[in-house]
Every structure is written in C-alpha cells, then in structure tokens.
C-alpha cells in the first residue's frame, strides 16, 4: 500500500512539474511579448476582429498566449489598417505606461486576469490550417480574436491607466 502511495505521489509530482514547466514557458514567451497583430474586420458595437500571431516552440502554448498578446497589442501597439478595414491606434500613447504601472499590468495579464473580460475567440475556436505555421524550430500560430475595444478602453479609463477622450490632452 505504501509503495502504491509513493508511486501515486511521484506521478502527481511529475505531472504537476510538467504542467508548471509548460506554464513557465508560456509566461516567458508572453513576457517577451513576441507577437504580430493584424486587423481582420471591424466587428459590431466597438469590437474588433484581430488576428494575433504568437510564437512558441509548442503550438498549444502559442494558442494559450494569443489572448494576452492581443489585448497587449490593442493597449500598447495598436493595429494598422488592412485593405478597407480601418486600423486601431494604441489605447495609450505613453510608451512607458507598462513600466510605470507594472504592478497593475502584472495583475491585469496574470493567468485568468482581467484581460479575459475583453477578449474571446472568434469563430468556433478552431485554428485555421494556414494560421498554424512552423518556422524553423518554433510555431507561429494565428488566432482570430474578437476584442471588445470599447469595454477595454472604458475599464482602463476608469482605473486611471489611460485618459478619457473627454478629459482633453
């Protein structure tokens, strides 16, 4: 019985450490904010459909991190126009905001953090075949996401992270 317990605990430990390794990898990739953002379409009522290309050695990790990357892009980088679809400037024009409010954004982008409120996977959740690309030894995965830009803007204004349009510049 003791032997069985030992095996069970060892297996649990191995599974846990493997999952935390994968999580660490994902976080490391996210910390580097390696992604590309492109606009797909203008959605309804202040939403935007964007495709975020994330990089990772593991395809599943890249998919997981796509949502964080997309919100990060909308806040700090903006999206350029594509064809007849207009672009979306960054919600902040302060290039140092992320550093200045590091504590806030660490919480905001934590796993299951507030960022989740403003993003959802577009379509049926599947990745299109042309959006799953192996480049060298890593994967470049494109996920189409619907971003509630208006909601995100209002929330960041309410918490004082960005100025409201009515407050003047």
């Amino acid at each position, binding site marked *: 019985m003791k032997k069985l317990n030992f095996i069970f605990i060892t297996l649990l430990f191995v599974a846990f450490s493997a999952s935390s390794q994968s999580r660490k990898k994902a976080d490391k990739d996210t910390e580097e904010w390696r992604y590309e953002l492109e606009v797909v*379409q203008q959605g309804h009522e202040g939403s935007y459909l964007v495709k975020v290309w994330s990089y990772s050695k593991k395809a599943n990790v890249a998919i997981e991190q796509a949502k964080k990357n997309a919100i990060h892009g909308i806040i700090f980088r903006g999206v350029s126009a594509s064809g007849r679809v207009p672009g979306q400037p960054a919600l902040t024009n302060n290039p140092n905001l992320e550093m200045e409010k590091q504590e806030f954004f660490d919480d905001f982008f934590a796993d299951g953090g507030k960022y989740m409120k403003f993003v959802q996977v577009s379509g049926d959740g599947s990745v299109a075949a042309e959006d799953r690309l192996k480049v060298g030894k890593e994967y470049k995965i494109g996920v189409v996401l619907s971003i509630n830009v208006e909601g995100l803007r209002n929330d960041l204004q309410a918490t004082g992270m960005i100025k409201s349009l009515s407050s003047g510049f």
Partner: protein
Amino acid sequence: MKHSSKQINKIIFTSLVIINLFYSVTFAQVQTKFFRPSITTTFIKPASNEIAKVYEGFATLPMEGRFDNRSVNSNMLNITIPPRPEMPKMENPLGAKRAIEDYKRSLKDWDNAVSKSISGSISPIGKEVFGNMFSRTSDGNMSWDKLMEAANYSATDNQALSAKESKNSANEMEAIANELVKRSYYVVYNIKSIKTYEQVYNDIDASLKALSIKTKKPFKPTPRTQEGWQIDFNYFIYKLVWDDATVNDFGDKAWLDASTTDPAERAKKITAFENYEFKFELALSGGSTANASQSNNPEVYKNAKFFKIVRKSMDQLLAELPSSMQDVMVFKGGREIEDFKMRAPIFQEKPITVKLGTKEGLYYDERFFVYEMEQDKEGKTVKKRRGVLRTSNIADNSMIATGTSPASKFRQQGGKKLYQGTLVELYEDYGYGFSIGYGLLDNFIGGATVSAEVRIPRLFKGSGKINKYLRGLYLNVNASYNPLMMGKKIFDDKVFIEAGVEQDKYDFQCISYGGSLSRETYFTRKGNLYLMPEIGGGLFTASTEDYNDPTDGEDKKEKLTAEGIYVNGSLGLGYHFTPMISFFVKGGFCMKLAPSWDADIDTKNYSKDFKTIEGISIPVFAGLRFRF
C-alpha cells in the same frame, strides 16, 4: 447618394476583383480551404445507340456529396475527337527512349487539339451554366441570390461565425460565392468503344491465337463465364476561367440586373451576354475502361435467391456504366485537382475531429493525409505530411452552418502527433494492396507467401451504419510456395521410417492458396502500430516428382501428391513505415483437414502419413505490406 446602374455594377465587380486579389494572395502558395466545386457533365455526341443509352444514365446519377451538380439541357458537344495516341510497341529496347519521347509529344499535341476543339464548343454550355448560377431571367436580369444560397451552404462554421461577427457580413459571403464561381468545372466524356463481353472474349481469343502461332504452342480459348459490357472512354475536366480580367470584362460588358433600366443599355448587355465567349482551361484529361458484367451461368442464379442476386438484362448492365465512369473521373480528379480535395483543419485533438461530414460526402474509412504548414528558408509556405487519418464516425452536417455544426471523428493511422489546426486533406486510396513475406513452422502454408487485399469499405463508399462496422475490414487472397529441398519435415520422420523410405531423398514442393478476412485495429494514439486478426481457409498440396515407392519393389520414381484443405486464424502486429508500406508479423493456428493422396498411389499403405498432416500447427509469418 444615388448610384447609377453602371456605378453599382462597377462597385460589385471592383469588389470582386479586390476579393479575388485577397484570396489569391492568401491562398496562392498552398490551398488550405475547401469550397464546394460544381460539376457540369457533358458528352461528345454518341456514335451508337448503346453509347447514347449510357449517357442517358447520367441524368439520374447523383454526384458525390462534395460537389454541386449543375446540370444543363444542352449537354451534347457535336464534335469528333481524333483517336488518342497509343503507346508504341517497344520491339527495339535501344529505341525505347526516343519512342517514349515521341509518344509524349504526340500525346501533348493530341491534348492541345482536343482541348481546342472542346473549348470552342463548350462555351454555349458555359453560358447556360452561368445563366443558371446567376438566376438569369427571360428579360436578361441576373442576381447573386442563388449563388449566395450556395455560398451559405458551402460556408464552414468559422466562415459563418466570422460573417456574423463582421460589420460587413455580406462581403464574407460574396467572397465565398466568388470562390464557388471560380470552381466551376465541366466534364466532357467520350466513349471511344463499347463492346459486349462476347466481343471482348473474341478479341482476347484472337490475341491468344496470334500468340500461340508465334510461340508455336497450342491455342486454348478463354473460358466465357461472363456477360455484360466493357467500355473504353476518355474524360476531360475543364475549369471556367474567372480571373480578375474576366470578372472586369464580364462586369463591364455582360452583367445585367434590374438596376439597368435604359432599354438601349439593356439590349446591348443582353446581346453581349449571348455572344460572350466564356474561357475554359483543361484541368485534367485521362482515359480508362469500365465494366458492367455478371456470370452467364444460369445455375448461379438458381441458388442465389437467398442473397437476392438476380440476373440483370443487358440494358440494366448498361445502366451501371455511368456510375463507374463517374467514379473514375472523381477519383482521378480528386488526386490531381486541388479544388477537388476536401480539406479542413483538425478541430479537436482527442479524439481527432474535423468539421467535415455528410455534406462533403464522407464515407467510412476514407483516407486523408494531415499536413503541417511550414515556412521554408525562402519564406514560402510548404506543406509537410505529418500523418494519415481515416474516417471513423461521420457527422450529419448537411445544413447551413451556424457555428455549431457537428464534427466527424477520425482515427490516426500512422505518423507523428497531430495538433489542432493541422490541415486534413483528402487523398483517397485505391483500396488495394498486396503483401509479401515468409512463413515458418508449417510447411504446407508456409514458405514464400504473397497476398492481395481489397479494403471492403472502399468498395461500398458508404456512410450508413452498416458501413461503420465494416471499417478496417479486408478481403484477402493468399498463396504460398514452399520448395522443400531434400524433403525435410514434410512428413514426420517417423512416418518415413515406418514407410521404409529415407526422407532426405525427396524434393517436395508445397503450394497453398486460399482466402481470408482480416481487420485492422488501432490501439495507440498515433496509430503507427496496428493489430490485425485474420481468419480464412484454402487448399494445400505437397508433391514430389521423384518418389520411390518402397512397396512395389521397383526402383522407379513416381509422382506423389498430398492434397487437403486448411482453416487458419492468426493475429498480426503491423508497423507503418509510410502510409503505403508497413511491416508485419503474425502468428496463429492452422488446422489441416481431409488430406488425400493422388489416385496412382496405394493409399492403404500410407494411412499413417495422413495423421502427420492432419491436425493443428502454429505457424508464424513476417513480411512487408504495400497499400495503394
């Protein structure tokens, strides 16, 4: 702001050009999406009543699920096709290379000549199809409505949801509709010859007769066991040219809708449409034979009532030919034409599901390759094969996609680990294969073995419940040859000693032939390994030409043969090297029954020999399996 009709047309067709450009940039390198192609079936004017009857059969023949069938009234092309060049006979091997080059050149010339001839006469048919596609009314007005319906039906869940979430959902569907127009295919069949089986047998006999004269061997006529028809036919698959230049040209000159009210302008456009020269490009051409036959022995039908086998009339057999012709065209087209290959990404990994189903005409055990998109050093996207899948559970998705369409389940049968988003693409197999190997521990069915196999679900191509249970089932024809020099271990040593002969004086050879049913079963995630239980039976013979009968007292060599039936069962384990080649080992039992000596041996003295043949052995086999 009110737009004039000319401006509206300009807007529609300019947007189509932009959509065209977008899609050609996105999908220029590797096609990753499937849009339902449409097929219009046409024929070269028949040369005989029988051929005309075969063509008539196409009218009621359903098209495979992944295609839209666009039928037309004027489906006969009044042209004459010159005979297709035949491969020259290679009498002088030194001149073979040149002969092949000449053949290829003449084939290309023939292709060009036929293509030119058909393209010229297919244009009116294109006009009729185009008119149907754009719901052209008697007053010349056209609309996208019908095509948009087809686009809605063709749209995947992702496309439907994307359109729903988009501010300009109409653009999404227009893009799909435009892709459907671009995938308008026209098939032209030409039956070169039609023969009854009697004529077929006559031709074979004539060839055999000529051969027998050449080889100075006696002529043996072919047994005439079948009745029915055999045809030799060509097919030509054309694709409508619908590029930016054509879209612009057609939009400017021939597109007409209710927004154009000026009678002079309308008349001009109607005339332009009537005279419009639709362009086509040859996508594929080929030739094949098709047969519809049955046994001509009335006895077969007397005892076959239980299985509902009825003797068909010659006309009924004739009616079976269109289906065979279409199968050939769809299969070959599916291998060569990118638009014919249904494809979708993996939706879920465990179990593997893909959003394809009855709408696309999936059948159980249909083979798909899985590809990963890879960016090469030059930045080009290429697809690399990662695995093989076969359909294991078919979802009914024959509805307009809303975002919640069910997905079909697939079973991986070899390759690497597959992830969500990897491309699943149809690569149908012939369903045939063979294996070569060696068997030990039973000399009667062992030695060098060869088997031919046919995958049963491939014959029926069914999506019904019964077909689900036929998955992975094979019908095999097996044969073995075991030349046992010095007669070792044919019979038990004891028997030979009792019979008073020295075993090592005889060269026996064992031959067996039989049939079996086997089933591939997969038990690992990647499916590189598979189990294959098999059950079967057949006949075996063991014979020697130089048997010295110890009982007759003469030193005279005679022929000795033992014959019998066997029943065997085995369990095999296979490993896929590639989708085509696998290695297998199998072991099981073989029960030999009712062996008998040939008549010229006094069996009474050798009754003990049979005991050594009868009974159960435990043979093992190993070999390579090839599937196509």
